């Protein structure tokens, strides 16, 4: 109790007295915590929600059977005739766009009468026989917002189908959280609507409860060689495995603001220690132990962290709403079609906020608390001691920085662990630490150099500002470090994204050479496998403007326990027009010949890196009813799929999967054809089908829009880190103003105008901004190399050509510099408003 009282008097009371500084620090921590919470919540909502729709209908299945190109219905007939207790559920899976709403939703076909699953579940309404006989009846989840008896129009493949809602599925008891919008219909109706007649997409195998006997081998005996039997839910697991790297990268980015916040807590507690050195001396002389002093200052950090966490939790929940939309779109575009789930604060979320807020605060206040506890009563001198220490240890820290940078560079050379580049993250963190260690020395040099520079616009105020900052180097450099880190992260992400964008743009231009592209309307997700009717292709080929049509078809496959995409196209046609760049392989002509004439394929760079597959290797794929060995003809640069893309010739693939419907087509016009006229004529000829025809330029633009949307969250996170740093700078300048109030008072007595005092503080904020920009640029450049060459490559497997996004960098640096000036406005006002007499009297 007495300790609590002492803690209140010595720690809490001063914090409450300095409301502005305390508020700024708490706000900075709160922002840091909020982005961590927001990203965690948004990550959960956007990446786990796909299990809601797929796994809801999976039930208690033990196994699932899948076959690229579909399982022949006859296989299902054989399975259900198997003796024993096993039960089987057939599935058709696809997507449809709800007309009027424009929402793309999963469409499932289930055997409404015979499905073993339905008999044990109460959430799906048992349909009346008349409903099932009524072929246009569908069942929907509540989130679709359609009532029983109403009509719903779905755009499926390139047709519009009208259905009547037979009932609304009760999803309130569903496992794994809320279920997104989906449409369920009878199996045969789904086969018709989705063009899968005679085929099934998946068969679930249900074992009786308590079954211990492994029946997988018995099941396999009834399957064609191309079918894959795996544990139920393996797709979701594979998708989650794919998403892990994505989530890790976003998660790590979200911690940047918190790291910047840590510097601010360090600064706040350091200032407290410096200011209260005489008090520390007194309480030590009166009998306080070192540990008591240490605990007191750790408690101060802890209080700031706890307050930040408490504020950051609801703020994070609010930020998550925006983040989940962005992340959900990215997940949908790059990984798996899924509508984001609901954002909910679980007990774990609160624990996360408390852990990161208080944890980072404790870590940040450890050093100043140690410094406070280490002082003997006689050493209880003011800032001079700390500044002396800072000046004398500057050289030592420079050497440590060099050592840390070398070790960090070494770490960056280590391989990833489970596709997560942990060594790269630590290496990047090490570089950040190196920069922080070098900051005092660089700041001192820069402040000396900038003295003259700032004297020109600010007069004597510029010189005084530089001198004052240099004299407060111990705290100035902490703020410069925080600001530099935030700036560096902004710059490094900017360079990485800018380079990536430029690389992708170049790749799109090389790969997409057709004049027009045609695909079913409404297709969104990367695993949305809608197809076009053969009639569409025939009509397009018949156009007088068309020289050639390249039919592109994609299938979801699984390889090495990870999802991948198998694609086919008319290779000769593509080869004649594209300028594909290869990472590995012989001359392009040889590659194309090999692809057109044999069971060969090209693998994309991400696939090559994930599975360590190289030219000449044989990949066994299960296609249709066959197991086929494909030779890797080349590895190409491809940025289409993170999971990896395998490309083979259309005619070769059709030998194994005789399905002629393409997913999309690339249309090459005859020389001299008018593209506008051709587009209009083709659109008219396929008017009966729901398709979209876009020009080459539009595809490129749309791709870049998706790209920009994907990285919007990265920029948002960096912007938050900058805001945190700006808050810190404002707090530091305010502290500087308060601590040097006597000097400012003397200036006023000597004839300085209020404007000159304001200029002095603004010049200081300008100097801090300039030094931070300089260090941030250098560190940002180094970090961008780590991001491009190590973290991105190990996480996703893409080669990114380095590119300086000059416009972005200039804009970012100007914005950071402008923001740092803004950070000085309030402290400048405070400084100018102080009464010199009052100040001198206080001293």
């Amino acid at each position: 109790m007495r300790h609590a009282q002492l803690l209140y008097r010595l720690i809490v009371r001063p914090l409450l007295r300095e409301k502005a500084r305390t508020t700024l620090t708490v706000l900075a921590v709160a922002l840091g915590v909020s982005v961590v919470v927001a990203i965690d919540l948004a990550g959960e909502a956007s990446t786990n929600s796909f299990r809601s729709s797929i796994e809801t209908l999976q039930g208690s299945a033990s196994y699932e059977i899948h076959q690229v190109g579909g399982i022949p219905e006859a296989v299902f007939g054989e399975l259900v005739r198997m003796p024993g207790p096993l039960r089987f559920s057939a599935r058709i899976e696809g997507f449809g766009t709800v007309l009027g709403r424009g929402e793309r939703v999963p469409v499932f076909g289930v055997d409404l009468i015979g499905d073993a699953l339905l008999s044990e579940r109460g959430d799906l309404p048992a349909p009346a026989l008349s409903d099932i006989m009524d072929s246009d009846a569908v069942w929907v989840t509540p989130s679709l917002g359609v009532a029983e008896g109403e009509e719903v129009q779905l755009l499926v493949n390139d047709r519009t189908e009208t259905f009547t809602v037979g009932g609304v599925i009760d999803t309130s008891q569903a496992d794994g959280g809320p279920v997104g919008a989906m449409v369920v219909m009878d199996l045969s109706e789904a086969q018709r609507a989705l063009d899968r007649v005679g085929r099934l997409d998946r068969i679930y195998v249900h074992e009786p409860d308590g079954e211990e006997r492994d029946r997988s081998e018995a099941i396999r005996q009834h399957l064609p060689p191309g079918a894959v039997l795996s544990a139920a839910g393996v797709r979701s697991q594979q998708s989650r495995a794919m998403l892990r790297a994505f989530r890790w990268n976003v998660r790590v980015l979200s911690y940047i603001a918190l790291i910047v916040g840590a510097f601010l807590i360090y600064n706040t507690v350091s200032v407290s220690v410096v200011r209260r050195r005489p008090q520390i001396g007194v309480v030590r002389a009166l009998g306080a132990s070192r540990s008591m002093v240490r605990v007191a200052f750790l408690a101060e950090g802890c209080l700031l962290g706890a307050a930040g966490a408490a504020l950051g939790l609801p703020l994070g929940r609010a930020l998550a709403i925006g983040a989940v939309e962005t992340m959900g779109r990215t997940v949908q575009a790059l990984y798996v079609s899924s509508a984001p789930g609901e954002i909910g604060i679980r007990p774990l979320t609160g624990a996360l906020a408390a852990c990161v807020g208080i944890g980072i605060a404790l870590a940040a206040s450890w050093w100043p608390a140690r410094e406070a506890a280490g002082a003997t009563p006689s050493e209880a001198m003011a800032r001079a001691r700390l500044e002396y220490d800072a000046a004398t240890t500057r050289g030592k820290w420079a050497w440590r920085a060099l050592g840390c940078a070398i070790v960090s560079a070494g770490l960056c050379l280590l391989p990833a662990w489970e596709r997560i580049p942990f060594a790269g993250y630590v290496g990047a963190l090490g570089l950040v630490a190196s920069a922080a260690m070098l900051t005092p020395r660089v700041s001192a040099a820069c402040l000396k150099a900038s003295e003259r520079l700032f004297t020109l616009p600010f007069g004597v105020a510029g010189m005084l500002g530089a001198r004052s900052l240099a004299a407060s180097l111990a705290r100035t450099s902490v703020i410069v470090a925080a600001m530099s880190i935030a700036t560096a992260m902004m710059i490094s992400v900017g360079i990485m994204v800018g380079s990536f964008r430029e690389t992708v743009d170049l790749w799109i231009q090389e790969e997409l050479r057709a004049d027009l592209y045609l695909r079913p309307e409404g297709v969104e997700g990367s695993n949305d496998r809608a197809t076009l009717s053969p009639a569409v292709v025939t009509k397009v080929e018949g156009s007088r403007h068309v020289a050639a049509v390249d039919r592109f078809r994609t299938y979801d496959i699984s390889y090495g326990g990870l999802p991948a995409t198998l694609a086919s196209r008319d290779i000769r046609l593509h080869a004649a027009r594209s300028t594909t760049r290869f990472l590995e392989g012989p001359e392009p002509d040889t590659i194309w010949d090999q692809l057109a004439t044999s069971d060969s394929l090209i693998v994309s760079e991400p696939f090559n890196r994930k599975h360590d597959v190289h030219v000449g290797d044989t990949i066994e794929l299960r296609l249709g009813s066959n197991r086929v060995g494909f030779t890797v003809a080349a590895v190409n640069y491809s940025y289409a799929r993170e999971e990896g893309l395998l490309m083979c010739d259309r005619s070769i693939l059709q030998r194994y999967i005789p399905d002629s419907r393409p997913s999309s087509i690339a249309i090459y016009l005859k020389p001299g054809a008018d593209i506008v006229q051709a587009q209009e004529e083709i659109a008219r000829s396929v008017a009966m089908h729901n398709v979209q025809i876009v020009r080459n330029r539009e595809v490129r633009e749309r791709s870049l829009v998706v790209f920009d949307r994907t990285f919007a969250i990265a920029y948002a996170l960096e912007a938050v880190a900058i805001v945190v740093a700006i808050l810190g700078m404002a707090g530091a300048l305010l502290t500087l103003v308060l601590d040097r109030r006597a000097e400012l008072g003397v200036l006023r007595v000597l004839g300085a105008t209020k404007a000159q005092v304001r200029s002095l503080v603004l010049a200081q904020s300008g100097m801090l901004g300039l030094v931070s920009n300089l260090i941030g640029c250098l560190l940002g450049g180094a970090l961008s190399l780590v991001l491009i060459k190590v973290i991105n490559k190990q996480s996703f497997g893409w080669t990114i050509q380095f590119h300086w996004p000059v416009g972005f960098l200039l804009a970012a640096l100007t914005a950071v510099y402008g923001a740092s000036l803004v950070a000085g406005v309030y402290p400048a006002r405070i400084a100018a408003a102080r009464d010199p007499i009052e100040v001198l009297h206080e001293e």
Partner: protein
Amino acid sequence: MTALSDVTVEIDPGEFVALIGRSGCGKSTFLNLAGAMDLPTHGEVHIGGVSTARMGDAELTAVRREQVGFIFQFFQLLPTLSAVENVELPLQLASQPRPRHRALELMELVGLNGLGDRLPYQLSGGQMQRVAVARALVHSPAVLLADEPIGNLDTETSSGILDLLQHINTDLGTTIVMATHSRDSAARAGRILRLSDGRLSPESPTRPV
């Protein structure tokens, strides 16, 4: 709380006035009012014939910048500036040309030739106060206000500073108002004003003798 009450004093150019009294008697307040650093709640302070109550912040700043020089008990040198930089600071604030030349002249005047590059912490107490005197004089003010200028110095050094002030008053004709609690120091002045509880003692000569 009333710091000063019923105080009417006229100080003529070239005078050396000592203001004595106990701690808290209002000496510093008197100097602050006289130096346009503060404004009276009642009554008026005229500097050069103009009431400070009628001056805005810019005019008060101009008075401090051009007409008044201050010397403090604790020197109040800016620790980040060298001795000569401290001296030239008022000229820089007023955007005067060639401030260094004038600052060096003043450094010579106060006997600190060759010490201009030293930072305050590299100087003794007496040297710091000499720098403060030089800084107070660098812009040739009409009045020098010294608040306990020797309050933080030993006897020998104090004597040197008082000699310097006398020299400035006599040779340069600068008006000096010095607050002190030392009778010996006050004896160096041409007129002594005694303050007690914010009022001038009856024996204080309110006009030049």
